[in-house]
C-alpha cells in the first residue's frame, strides 16, 4: 500500500540534521544503508560542527548527514542543493540555509515540539525560521517527532532518530523490512531490548509517514548483483594501504588525515603491519624513510601544516633515491586555515616545495574508489623508480561516503620475502642506467653491498663529490626518471566530445561534479567536455593536443585565484589557480581558471553556471564570487 501521491525521481538529496549527540548521524547512516541495499547509487557526506561541543539549539551545533541517492550508480559527488531536509530543530535547519546548501523549493520536515515549547526564544526562532523557509519557496511539514517517540520511550533523545529512519523510508517508499535488517545490524553490539525498541520506533515512523505524507517519492533502484561496498575515502586509503602491501604507516595526527590512521591502527596488525605515531611530522617521515631504506617501503599520511614540516625530508628521499609514499589529505589553508574543510591548495607545494631541484611523482585521487587503488600504484612507482611519490587526497574524499564496486581482494599480489642475497663486492649503490636514471637499490643485510648513502651530492658509487661534472650528472639521473615514467603514461580520457567550445580541466575530487556539470550542459546542447589529470608530475602526454581542439580551456579547482573583476587585477598581476598555472607553463596556452575556496565541495550547478558564463564571454569572472544563495554577499563585494 502506498500514499495518495507517489512522485518518481531520478535522484534526490536529503539532509538530516539534529543537535550534536541527538543521533541524526546514525539515522542517516541507517537510511543510507537501506537505500544502498535497495540498489540506489549513493554519496553521503557528514555535517560536522566546527567546535568539539557547541551549545545546543544553535546553528553551530548542527550535526548530521547529507545523502544523495540516485537511480544511477556510482554517484560521483555530493550533488547540488538539497531537495529535502529533515531537521530536529529550527537552528539545525537554519544552519543548512546559511551554508547555502538547500534548494528554495525544498521540502522541510521538522519536529513540531518547538512551536509550543516553554522557552519563548525557541518558539520565536522556530516561527521565524519556518517563515523564512516558506518565503523562499519551501514547503514545511511539521512532524510530531518528539511526541510520537515519547509514546514508545521515555527519553526521546534515544529514539527520535529511529522514528526519523522510518519516516524517511515512508517518504522515499522504501521497504521497511530492509530497514529492520539494517537497524538490527547497526545496533548489533547492543542488547536485544535496544534493538527491539529501535525497530519499533522505525516502524512507528514508517506508519506515521504512510498515513500523513500526502506526497511521497520513488527513486527507482536498478537492482544489480555486482557486489558493492560503501566507505569514506580515508577508510579506502587505509584498506588500500593494506592491499598495496605496506607494513608501516608512520604519522602524526592531523585533521582531516588522521581518521585514515585510525582505521589502519585498528586493522593493520592483523596483516603484519602497524601504525607508528611519531613525536612530530618530521620524525614521522624520518621513520618512514628509515624503514624504506631498510627495505620496507613505508607510508606517511598528513595534511597541509604537516606537509610543510616534511619538506626537508622530501629532499633527502629524492637525493638518496629512497622510495617513499606521502599522502596529503588536503584541507583549507594557508597555515592552520580551515582544518576540517576541503581545499586543493597544496598542489604547488607538492610539486615545488622542496628547495633545490627535487623531481618527484605527484598523483591525485579523484574518487573514493580510487583512494583504494591509488596506493598500490604509488608504492610500485616509488620502488621501481626509487622515487618519492606524493598522493593528494582531500577533506571531501576523506569524509564523503561513496558506494562502489567491491574490490576483488583475491587479486592482491603475493609478496616475495625481502631479497637479502649476496651481491658482488662493491656493487654500486647508484648503478644508474644513463638513459632512464634507473638503478637497483641495495638492501642492508645483503653481503657485499656495504656502503654509505648520503644527502650530499654523490656519484654512482655513492661517494660524496663536489665537482661540476658529477653534480650535473646526479641531477640528470634523478630528473630523467621522471621522463622515463612520463613515457609510460597515457593521455587523460576525455569526458564528452574530443573537441568543442570549452574544455574543463580538473584534478582530484572535483572530477565527479565537473563531469556531471558537463553532462547537464551537453544536454542543453552546450559544446563542453572535461578531463581529469591524475598525474600532476610528470604530466601525462598529449595535453597540448587535447587542448588545441577546444576554443577555450579552463581549470576548475578548489584553490585560490584572483578574479578578473577584482580591483587592481590585470593580465599581469592575476594569480591563477594552481593547476592552471602549471598547465600554462607546460603548454603555453591561455588556460583560464574557475578556482575558489568555499571550504566545501563544488556543486555541479555552480560549474554549470560557470560554463554558461564562459560561453557568454564572462571569462573566469565569477571565480571569487560566491553562489547567489550564500549569505552576506556584501562581504565579497565590499
Amino acid at each position: 500500500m502506498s500514499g495518495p501521491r507517489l512522485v518518481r525521481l531520478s535522484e534526490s538529496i536529503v539532509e538530516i540534521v539534529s543537535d550534536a549527540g541527538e543521533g541524526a548521524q546514525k539515522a542517516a547512516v541507517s537510511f543510507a544503508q537501506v537505500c544502498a541495499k535497495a540498489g540506489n547509487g549513493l554519496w553521503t557526506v557528514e555535517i560536522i560542527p566546527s567546535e568539539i561541543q557547541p551549545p545546543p539549539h544553535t546553528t553551530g551545533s548542527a550535526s548530521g548527514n547529507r545523502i544523495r541517492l540516485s537511480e544511477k550508480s556510482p554517484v560521483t559527488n555530493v550533488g547540488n542543493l538539497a531537495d529535502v531536509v529533515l531537521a530536529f530543530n529550527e537552528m539545525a535547519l537554519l544552519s543548512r540555509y546559511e551554508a547555502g546548501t538547500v534548494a528554495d523549493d525544498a521540502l522541510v520536515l521538522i519536529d513540531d515540539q518547538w512551536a509550543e515549547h516553554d522557552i519563548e526564544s525557541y518558539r520565536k526562532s522556530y516561527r521565524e525560521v519556518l517563515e523564512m523557509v516558506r518565503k523562499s519557496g519551501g514547503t514545511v511539514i511539521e512532524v510530531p517527532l518528539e511526541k510520537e517517540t515519547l509514546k514508545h520511550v521515555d527519553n526521546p533523545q534515544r529514539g527520535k532518530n529511529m522514528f526519523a529512519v522510518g519516516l524517511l523510508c515512508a517518504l522515499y517508499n522504501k521497504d521497511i523490512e530492509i530497514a529492520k535488517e539494517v537497524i538490527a545490524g547497526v545496533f548489533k553490539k547492543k542488547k536485544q531490548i535496544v534493538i527491539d525498541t529501535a525497530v519499533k520506533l522505525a516502524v512507528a515512523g514508517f506508519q506515521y509517514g504512510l498515513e500523513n505524507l500526502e506526497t511521497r517519492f520513488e527513486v527507482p533502484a536498478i537492482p544489480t548483483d555486482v557486489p558493492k561496498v560503501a566507505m569514506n575515502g580515508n577508510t579506502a586509503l587505509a584498506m588500500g594501504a593494506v592491499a598495496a602491501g605496506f607494513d608501516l604507516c608512520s604519522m602524526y595526527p592531523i585533521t582531516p588525515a588522521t581518521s585514515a590512521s585510525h582505521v589502519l591502527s585498528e586493522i593493520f596488525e592483523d596483516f603484519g603491519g602497524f601504525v607508528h605515531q611519531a613525536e612530530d611530522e618530521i620524525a614521522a617521515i624520518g621513520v618512514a624513510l628509515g624503514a624504506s631504506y631498510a627495505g620496507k617501503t613505508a607510508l606517511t599520511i598528513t595534511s597541509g601544516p604537516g606537509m610543510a614540516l616534511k619538506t626537508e625530508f622530501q629532499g633527502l628521499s629524492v637525493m638518496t633515491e629512497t622510495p617513499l609514499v606521502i599522502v596529503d589529505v588536503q584541507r583549507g589553508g594557508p597555515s592552520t586555515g580551515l582544518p576540517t574543510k576541503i581545499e586543493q591548495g597544496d598542489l604547488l607545494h607538492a610539486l615545488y616545495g622542496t628547495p633545490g631541484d627535487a623531481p618527484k611523482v605527484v598523483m591525485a585521487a579523484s574518487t573514493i574508489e580510487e583512494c583504494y587503488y591509488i596506493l598500490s600504484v604509488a608504492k610500485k612507482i616509488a620502488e621501481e623508480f626509487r622515487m618519492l611519490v606524493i598522493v593528494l587526497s582531500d577533506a571531501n574524499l576523506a569524509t564523503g561516503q561513496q558506494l562502489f564496486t567491491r574490490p576483488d581482494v583475491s587479486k592482491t599480489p603475493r609478496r616475495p620475502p625481502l631479497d637479502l642475497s649476496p651481491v658482488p663486492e662493491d656493487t654500486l649503490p647508484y648503478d644508474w642506467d644513463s638513459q632512464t636514471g634507473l638503478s637497483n637499490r641495495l638492501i642492508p643485510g645483503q653481503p657485499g653491498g656495504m656502503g654509505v648513502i648520503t644527502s650530499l651530492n654523490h656519484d654512482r658509487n655513492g661517494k660524496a663529490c663536489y665537482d661540476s661534472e658529477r653534480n650535473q650528472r646526479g641531477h640528470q639521473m634523478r630528473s630523467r626518471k621522471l621522463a622515463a615514467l612520463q613515457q609510460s603514461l597515457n593521455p587523460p580520457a576525455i569526458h564528452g566530445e574530443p573537441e568543442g567550445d570549452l574544455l574543463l580541466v580538473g584534478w582530484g575530487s572535483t572530477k565527479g561534479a565537473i563531469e556531471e556539470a558537463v553532462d547537464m550542459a551537453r544536454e542543453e546542447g552546450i559544446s563542453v567536455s572535461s578531463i581529469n589529470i591524475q598525474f600532476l608530475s610528470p604530466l601525462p602526454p598529449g595535453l597540448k593536443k587535447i587542448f588545441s581542439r577546444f576554443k577555450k580551456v579552463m581549470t576548475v579547482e578548489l584553490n585560490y585565484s584572483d578574479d578578473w573583476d577584482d580591483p587592481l587585477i590585470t593580465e599581469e598581476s592575476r594569480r591563477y589557480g594552481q593547476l592552471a598555472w602549471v598547465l600554462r607553463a607546460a603548454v603555453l596556452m591561455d588556460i583560464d581558471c574557475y578556482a575558489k575556496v568555499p571550504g566545501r565541495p563544488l556543486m555541479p550547478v555552480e560549474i554549470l553556471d560557470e560554463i554558461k558564463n564562459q560561453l557568454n564571454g564572462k571569462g573566469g569572472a565569477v571565480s571569487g564570487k560566491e553562489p547567489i544563495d550564500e549569505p552576506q554577499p556584501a562581504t565579497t563585494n565590499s
Partner: protein
Amino acid sequence: MSSIIQECLDESCAIHSHTLEDYQSEIPRWCKGCGDHGVLASLQRVMRKNNVDPENVVTVSGIGCSSRLPHYLKTYGFHGIHGRALPISTGVRLARPDLKVIVTMGDGDCFSIGGNHWLHAVRYNINAVVLVLDNEIYALTKMQVSPTTPVGQRTNTTPRGSSLQPMNPIGVVVGMTNVSFVAQTATWLPAHLDETIERAWEHKGLSFVRILQRCPVFMPEAYGEGGLNFPVTFLENEDGIPIHPGLLKRGPAQAHNQRNIDQALSVAAKVDPAPMGLIYHNPDLPTYEEIRVQHAKRPDHETFINRLDNLMDRYAV
C-alpha cells in the same frame, strides 16, 4: 660481552672470524688529532671483537664532522640530514629488527636541532648504540656556539663569549622517561672508550653514550685542552665500565650503583668533576620494536587475503 658468546667467538666462530680491515672503507678525512678518529677505531675494534658481520649493521648519522663516520666504517651507512639521525634509525629498527643500528651525532646534531627526537627515541627505547661526539662546538660549520659550549667561550656567533649555561646532556638524558642506558667517556681515554662502546653494544635498548671529543681545530680549549687537565671521577661498579689502573692517574674512582635512579640522577647532575663510566642502566626495559612487532605477525598469503576479504564485508551493502 657475556663470556658465553665470548667463548663461542674464540672457538667455533673463530673459523670465519672478521679482521679489522673488514670494517674499514675510505681513509677518514678528519683533521689530525681529531677525536673522531678514535671513536671510529674503537667501533672497529669492538665490532672485530664481537666478530660482527658488517652487512648486518647500519650506521646512521646526521650532518657534522662527527656524522661523516658512516663514510669510513664499512657497514651499511646512512649519512642523513642534520638532527634527524634518530627517526631514521627508529625506522630501520622497526622495519628490520634483525639489523644492528649504530647512531653517530654531534652535540649540535643531537642536543640542539635534534633535541625532540633525542627526548622521544630515549622514551621509545629502540635498540641502538647512540654515540654523541661532543666537542662542545659546531665544527663542520666552523665554530658556532653549541648547547654544550662553556660560558665565556668565544665563537663566531658569540664573539664576546657564550652567555648561556652550557647544557648538561647527561643530566638531561637521565631525567628522560624510560631511559635504559647512559654512559660517558672521552676520546682521550681509548681503553675506557672501547669498554664503554662494548657495554653499549651489549645493551638491549637505547644505549646513550656521550663521548667527550677533542676538536683541536675549533675547540682546543675544551675539556682542559682535550683532557690534559680535565677533572673526572670514574664510576666504579662490578657491572659498570672496567677502570683500567692506568686511568686512575686521570682522576679518582667513586663507587656508584648505576641501577639506582636516585644515585644516577644526583651523579648526572654533577659536571665538575665529570662522572665517567656507566651512569644509569636498566637492562629490563622492553624495546619499542619488541612491543610493536610482537603484535604484528605477517600472515601467510591466503590468511592475508581472507582477512582482507572479511574486512571488506564490514563495508559491504
